[in-house]
């Protein structure tokens, strides 16, 4: 496995090998799936959306709908306006969504299609909406694409004069439906009235009923997105995925925002709980405090198995920041922390976390790739890999256990139902990490050292 990866690290500026990110449009598409009765639409050649739908379906094991402008060579030369107009007409005729969320691609961005104008001049049926976001694939990553689509929806739809009844706007980062369900439960427990956008739960974890619903019961309704504009406050969860859309909401509708880390682990969840309680004017309920206590109980119980274990954390920036925080809380030692998404803010944030726990010598890098991670590991191994499915190659090559978390996970089932956010998500994650490390200890133990009680 990966036999051709050398230990010696040579400088590399042009060749990306085994990436730890993908392109903006798939993030935009996923964001749009968090809107009720929404058809995501890719303005480019049809291969893009075929790849994106495949990737999302492989991660969620759910249908992921989206249409395409199906560019041909002609459209690429003369512009894709006609294709988009045809597409929008056909989508409303055949699939009858309430909203079409168009994102661009490297193709349509390179030829310079002006989507604002094309959409403005377009005939849209009464009561229906078309929004767009610019997501050139040669900028950022799928995470910034997600952020841009959130911002696009807010630009088109959020209204200051709408009525949200003093609720808080909650903008979650790139999360699984299981995480979103956990977030909503947590906010309800705290007593915070909120409008969540986007919300893929119900859409990307629809139940088995023998009836395929193209638009399952779930997602933020158009009214919800309009209402974001009159919210008292916005809680944006994840700097890379949500700071920009929260900023757009503030500029457009004067909704003040608080950008929080993804609530993974104790301290990040504490931050959200306190922010929510403050916004709601409530006390943190005892039930939640008990939940927190149970997670801490588990962390102390299993502490010997976590303590000082070296871990490599990789994936999307907000998720990795959360996971790094949590493994630090568990007493583990991050040795490598990386994301494929570019951005200095990532390294600054991780460095601050490491400093808080007094961990030194950890390599932290944004805009990195898994080939580089593998080379680092060849030079100085770790006890655990924590990240996406593509780490399984390194895991096999170097015989290091892998705990899957983040996006994409293409080779397991059920992960999108299981939260990693909140105290409950922490419990599931801690159980998984302890299990992986202890399985390894058992596997490597001499017969006389195998403990039945641990």
């Amino acid at each position, binding site marked *: 496995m990966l036999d051709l990866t050398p230990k010696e690290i040579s400088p590399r500026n042009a060749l*990306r090998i085994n*990436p730890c990110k993908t392109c903006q449009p798939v993030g935009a598409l996923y964001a749009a799936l968090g809107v009720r009765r929404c058809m995501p639409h890719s303005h480019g050649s049809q291969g893009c959306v075929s790849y994106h739908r495949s990737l999302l379906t492989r991660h969620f094991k759910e249908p992921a709908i989206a249409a395409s402008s*199906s560019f041909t060579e002609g459209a690429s030369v003369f512009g894709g306006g006609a294709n988009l107009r045809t597409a929008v007409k056909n989508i409303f005729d055949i699939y009858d969504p309430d909203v079409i969320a168009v994102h661009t691609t490297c193709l349509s961005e390179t030829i310079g299609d002006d989507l604002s104008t094309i959409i403005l001049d377009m005939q849209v049926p009464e009561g229906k909406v078309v929004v767009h976001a610019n997501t050139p694939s*040669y900028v950022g990553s799928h995470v910034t694409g997600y952020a841009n689509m959130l911002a696009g929806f807010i630009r088109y739809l959020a209204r200051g004069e709408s009525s949200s009844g003093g609720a808080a706007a909650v903008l979650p980062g790139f999360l699984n439906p299981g995480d979103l369900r956990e977030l909503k439960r947590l906010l309800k427990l705290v007593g915070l009235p909120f409008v969540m956008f986007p919300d893929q739960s119900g859409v990307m974890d629809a139940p088995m009923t023998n009836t395929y619903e193209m638009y399952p019961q779930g997602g933020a309704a158009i009214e919800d997105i309009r209402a974001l504009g009159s919210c008292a406050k916005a809680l944006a969860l994840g700097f890379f995925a949500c700071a920009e859309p929260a900023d757009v909401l503030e500029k457009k509708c004067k909704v003040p925002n608080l950008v929080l880390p993804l609530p993974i682990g104790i301290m990040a969840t504490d931050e959200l709980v306190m922010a929510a309680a403050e916004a709601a004017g409530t006390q943190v309920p005892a039930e939640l405090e008990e939940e927190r206590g149970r997670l801490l109980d588990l962390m102390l119980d299993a502490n010997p198995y976590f303590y000082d274990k070296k871990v490599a954390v990789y994936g999307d920036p907000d998720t990795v920041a959360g996971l790094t925080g949590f493994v630090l809380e568990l007493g583990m030692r991050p040795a490598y922390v990386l994301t494929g998404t570019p951005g200095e803010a990532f390294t600054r944030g991780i460095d601050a976390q490491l400093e808080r726990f007094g961990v030194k010598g950890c390599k932290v890098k944004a805009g990195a790739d898994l080939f580089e991670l593998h080379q680092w590991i060849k030079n100085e191994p770790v006890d655990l890999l924590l990240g996406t499915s593509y780490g399984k190659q390194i895991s096999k090559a170097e015989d290091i256990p892998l705990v899957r978390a983040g996006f994409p996970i293409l080779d397991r089932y059920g992960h999108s139902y299981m939260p990693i956010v909140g105290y409950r998500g922490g419990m599931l994650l801690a159980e998984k990490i302890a299990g992986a490390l202890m399985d390894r200890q058992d596997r490597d133990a001499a017969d006389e050292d195998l403990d039945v009680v641990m």
Partner: protein
Amino acid sequence: MDVKAEILGSYNAKVFKNRKDHILRINKAEAENPEIAANTRAIPGIMTNRGCCYAGCKGVVVGPLKDAVTITHGPIGCGFYSWGTRRNKARPDEDGRNFIQYCFSTDMQEPDIVFGGDKKLRAAIREAMEIFKPRSILICSTCPVGLIGDDIHSVAAEAEREYGITCVAFSCEGYKGVSQSGGHHIANNGLMKRIIGSNDLAPTGKYPVNLLGEYNIGGDGWEVERILRRIGYDVVSVFTGDGSVQAISRAHTATLNLVQCHRSINYVAEMMKTAYGTDWLKVNFIGLKSISGSLRNLAQYFGAEELMERTEEVIAGETAAIADDMAFFREKLQGKTAALFVGGSRSHHYQELLSEYGVSTVLAGYEFAHRDDYEGREIIPAIREDADSKNIEQAEIMKDEKRYRVFLSPQRYEELKNTIGLEDYKGMIRDMPDGTYVVDDLNHFETGVFADLLKPDIFFSGIKDKYVLQKGGTLSRQLHSYDYSGPYAGYKGAVVFGRDLVMGLQAPAWGMVSPPWKINAEKSAAEGQRDSHA
């Protein structure tokens, strides 16, 4: 019930006009081999299952070549999506060079789009040389590369001069053509012009063949090679599953090309005929009758008594070895119906195997086929060129005087054309019985209507459809990836296929979808109704 009418009735005028010629209901009395519209543009906004030119070139044909560093020149997405997602398995040869697990991309950024990406491509090649010292580098371009005009072909030529390697560039921008199909053609052209014929090392075996259009999904190619080697064939190269640049550079030294996936590779077969005189034979290694028939045709081609004998021995032995398993699964599958929507060959190839399990095909369609895949090669001269097909290069191939060889006498060649269908493919439609449907470029909406109205027990399609169908209560098996199982080809593969279908149909969860309280409520409602009638 006419499903075609149901579907077309839901479309607006323009979509109706386009789609009506892509959907056929077979009626032999009306037409033995009716015409179908294929290889035309998908309609914007219609959820087609099709991919793009890059997917056909890099994803299908070029990507499986294991000894090459294949660099995707473009933003990161295209390279990422085609990384480890197709299941084209490969083991390293003795030299240990296997790049299949890797993804290489120039990860173009905004300045590369504005100022040109060729500098970055050059640097990427240099870095690949420093790290891996490969013997070949292949470059596949993505949409923006063609638009900004990076000259990837001269970058490749430079690299060949500078590093003394084989470096071939493929201009397979996603917007070219109307589907993956254009990409297959572009890949075929590049392999033919630059790699095939570059190494004259003679075959070691007596009956040297190439296996074309076999991508070793789930290990299919290995099972086929196993059978061919048992009989005594020397498989010189495979295009391209577990294949290598090294091996296909010698492809012209083989006597015969066996064509499994007609759509993706028939261009190489034709071009090799022109350049080297290599004959080709359409084969199908899916389903017992098809495999055995293909093996017998192959033996006929070489005409050697020892081959024919050995072929019969192997067929008898292999068939006997799986007979009990086949019978076991057939008993469970007998009477079921299937729908097939796959790329450009499998929808035809699997019908025989299904029928051997007692499963009848009620719907079959191709994602990116041309009319000849449906109607047979004789209609090729009648296919009208359009703006999109004109954009895909028809490579000009000349006879290679030094390497051109003729194996068959003209008389024998004519004879074999009739007896074993040498250099012909009759297409799928002829094998479809009355009342079945043939649909080109089946889309999301049509899939739903067919599933609802035809109610096939099993719907074979891809990952994008799988859960649409499953949610609606229909077993769906991916026939691109075999749902991470396989092989399905060859004799052993036939058993794996049967087992997988039975496994899917017998999943206990199907029987528990309706909760008992709902079933009870329905029952008492029905009883109540009976009582009130009484």
